[in-house]
């Protein structure tokens, strides 16, 4: 593996993220889930860190791509933000 492999992998992850978001908007959450899982697998194989936005807007439990207002709720609480997936999973993120 060299740098060009990593570039391709990074581009693939970014592309899959866009596709997952479009799929959720087009009411194809099953397809979006497939893309999220594939992006995770690509990152794993190439030892890449997933983009910040990807980590925050995908469900750790069911791999859904989260679009607030569509399949996720975002609530601000004291000291943290809570993102709730339709599957019931909560993720809490600090403000900083």
């Amino acid at each position, binding site marked *: *593996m060299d740098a*060009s*492999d990593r570039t*391709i*992998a990074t*581009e*693939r992850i970014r*592309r*899959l993220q*866009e*596709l997952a978001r479009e799929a959720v908007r087009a009411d194809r959450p099953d*397809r979006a889930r*497939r*893309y999220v899982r*594939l992006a995770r*697998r*690509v990152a*794993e*194989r*190439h030892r890449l860190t997933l983009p910040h936005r990807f980590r925050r807007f995908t469900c750790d439990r069911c791999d859904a791509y989260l679009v607030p207002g569509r399949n996720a709720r975002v609530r601000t609480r004291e000291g943290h933000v809570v993102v709730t997936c339709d599957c019931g999973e909560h993720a809490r993120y600090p403000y900083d």
Partner: protein
Amino acid sequence: MPTPETLPRHELIGLPVRVADATHDGYVGLGGRVVDETTRTLAVDGSGTGVRQVPKAAATFEFRLPGTGDDAPAHGARGADQFVTVAGERLVARPARRTEHRGDSIWR
């Protein structure tokens, strides 16, 4: 973004594709967007025809790459779309593994 050189190792999902040739006539001419990929097949969503699963090894695919800005004639205009023909056999690999194959190794 995918270029003709990197396409076989790049993300195929989302790209417009047409089956240029296949060992079975039923697949020839199928077109649409790639919506899913498995080790041995591509799922192509054609408008009106629904999603069809096409075996990679048995087909030759023609992908359309959206034109980049590089070869654009005028500023702000998009370059012409490029058509890339790939022998499906080169794509036979698990989706996440494909990026790692260079396709020029003599080792299995």
